[in-house]
C-alpha cells in the first residue's frame, strides 16, 4: 500500500502536460527587465521599448541592426507573437522594424521586416538576412499592429488585423524554436515597440507582476523582489 502521501509523490513525478500560455510585456512598468540589448541604444519610455539611435542604411546583416533579445526561459515553437510598432511621423514611411523569432542564438533564426513596401521574412544565418519572401502590403506610416502565427514550417502574418502573408520554410535547416527579439534595420527617427504578447505551448509570464515563491513564503510580486 503506498498511501495518500505516496500517491501524491507519484503524481508529482509524472511529467506535466504541455500547456498553452501567455507572456505580455506592455513596458508600462518603466523598465526593460528580461530584455538584453545586443546592439544599439534602447530605452523604455511611455509604455514603449524604443530604439533611439539612427540607422542610416538598410541593414543586410544583424551586425548593422539595432536589436534586443528577450531572455525568456521558454522558447517559442508554435504559437503567436503580437505587437504594435509605432514609426515617427517625420519618417514618412522611411523607417523599418524587425520582429525576430525562433532565434536559436543572437545570430540565427528568423525575422519579419515591416517597411513601407510591405512585409519581408528573412532567415538569419550567422547574422546574414536571407530573404525567404517579400510581399507588398499596406503598411501604415505610423502605427501598425502585427501578429505572427507559427505552426511547424508555416508562418502567417496578420497586419492591422488582416492576414497578409503565408509562407513556409520546408528546409531541413529550419529553425524549430527559439527566443524573440526586436530590431531596427533602418531608421532616421526613434522606433517604438509596444504591447509585446507571446502565446504558445510552454510560454508563461516570467517577469513583472507575477507571483513567485520565495523561500517557501507567501508569493511575492517580482517587482517587490526587484525593489529590494
Amino acid at each position, binding site marked *: 500500500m503506498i498511501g495518500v502521501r505516496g500517491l501524491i509523490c507519484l503524481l508529482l513525478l509524472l511529467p506535466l502536460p504541455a500547456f498553452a500560455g501567455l507572456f505580455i510585456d506592455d513596458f508600462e512598468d518603466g523598465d526593460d527587465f528580461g530584455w538584453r540589448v545586443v546592439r544599439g541604444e534602447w530605452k523604455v519610455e511611455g509604455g514603449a521599448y524604443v530604439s533611439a539611435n539612427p540607422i542610416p542604411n538598410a541593414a543586410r546583416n544583424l551586425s548593422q541592426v539595432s536589436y534586443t533579445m528577450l531572455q525568456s526561459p521558454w522558447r517559442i515553437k508554435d504559437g503567436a507573437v503580437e505587437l504594435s510598432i509605432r514609426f515617427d511621423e517625420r519618417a514618412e514611411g522611411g523607417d523599418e522594424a524587425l520582429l525576430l523569432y525562433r532565434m536559436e542564438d543572437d545570430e540565427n533564426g528568423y525575422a519579419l521586416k515591416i517597411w513601407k513596401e*510591405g512585409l519581408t521574412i528573412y532567415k538569419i544565418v550567422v547574422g546574414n538576412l536571407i530573404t*525567404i*519572401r517579400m*510581399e*507588398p502590403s499596406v503598411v501604415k506610416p505610423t502605427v501598425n499592429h502585427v501578429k505572427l502565427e507559427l505552426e511547424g*514550417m*508555416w508562418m502567417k502574418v496578420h497586419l492591422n488585423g*488582416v*492576414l*497578409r*502573408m*503565408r*509562407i*513556409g*520554410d*520546408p528546409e531541413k535547416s529550419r529553425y524549430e524554436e527559439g527566443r524573440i527579439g526586436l530590431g531596427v534595420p533602418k531608421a532616421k527617427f526613434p522606433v517604438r515597440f509596444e504591447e509585446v504578447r507571446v502565446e504558445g505551448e510552454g510560454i508563461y509570464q516570467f517577469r513583472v507582476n507575477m507571483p513567485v515563491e520565495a523561500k517557501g513564503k507567501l508569493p511575492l510580486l517580482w517587482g517587490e523582489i526587484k525593489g529590494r
Partner: protein
Amino acid sequence: MRKGFSIVFVLIAIFAIHSMAFPAKIDPGKLGVIYYCAFPVTITLDGKFDDWPSVVPWHKVPHDRGTQPAPDDNDASYEFACVADENYLYVAFKVRDDKKVVGEDTGCNVWKDDSVEVYIDGGNEKANSYDANDSQVTIGRDNVGGDPEHPKLGGCVGQLQGPNTGTKAFVVDTDYGWAVEAALPLETWGIELRDGLVIGFNTHLNDDDDKGPRDHKLIWSEKDVADTSWKDPSVFGELKFVEVKLAVSPRDKLATVWGALKR
C-alpha cells in the same frame, strides 16, 4: 429455374447498360499534390464551359492558400480543371474576384495585375531551375475581348518563355469575376500523351485590387510554400494523364465515347 436465370441475366444487362450510360468517375486526385487529367477530350475555346464533361474534377484553391492570402473567397479564390487531347492540354479557370484591375501592367509584367499562371515541367525532372521543358505561362485578364489564337501572355522566365509557347486562351468576365479557357500545345514541352504519364504542374492566381503592386497570390501546389515556382520546378505538384471513356447516353442509345461524339 430457367425463368429465374433469365431475370438475373436481364437485371445484369440493365445494370451494365445503365452503368455505361452514366459518366465514368475520374479520380479527383489531391489538392496541391496531383491532378488527374482526363483524355481524350477536345475543348472549343469560347469561354462557355459547356463542353467540359461534368465528371472532370475541379480543384478549388481558397482565399487563404498562398503566400499573399485574401480576406475571403469573393475577394480572390479560384478553381481549375484540365483535360487533354492528342494536341493540347486544356486548362480552365473560374476566378472569383471582386475588383477588376487590368492594363496597368501588361506583357511580362502582367503578374502584377489580375492574372492566372500555369506551370509545366514536361519531363517532370523536378530540377531546382528551369530547363528546356519547363515554363511559366501567365494569362492576364486583359485578354478579355482579345484574340484567343494570339493572346497576350506573360511568364518571361527560363528558356521556354510563356509568350513563346503557342498557348491559346479565351478570357471572359463573369458575374463572379472572370474565367479562362486555355489550350497549351503538348508538343511545346515534348509531351507525348499516354495513359499514366505524369508531368510537373502548378497553377497560381495573381489578384490586384487597387492598382499598384499585386494584392493577393494564391497557389495550388502545396510544395510551393514561398512562391518560387517561377524559378524552381521542384516545388511544382503533378498532373497525371488518364485515359477515360467518358460515356454519355445520347437519346437512349448505347453509350458513346465523348471524344467520338464531338468529332
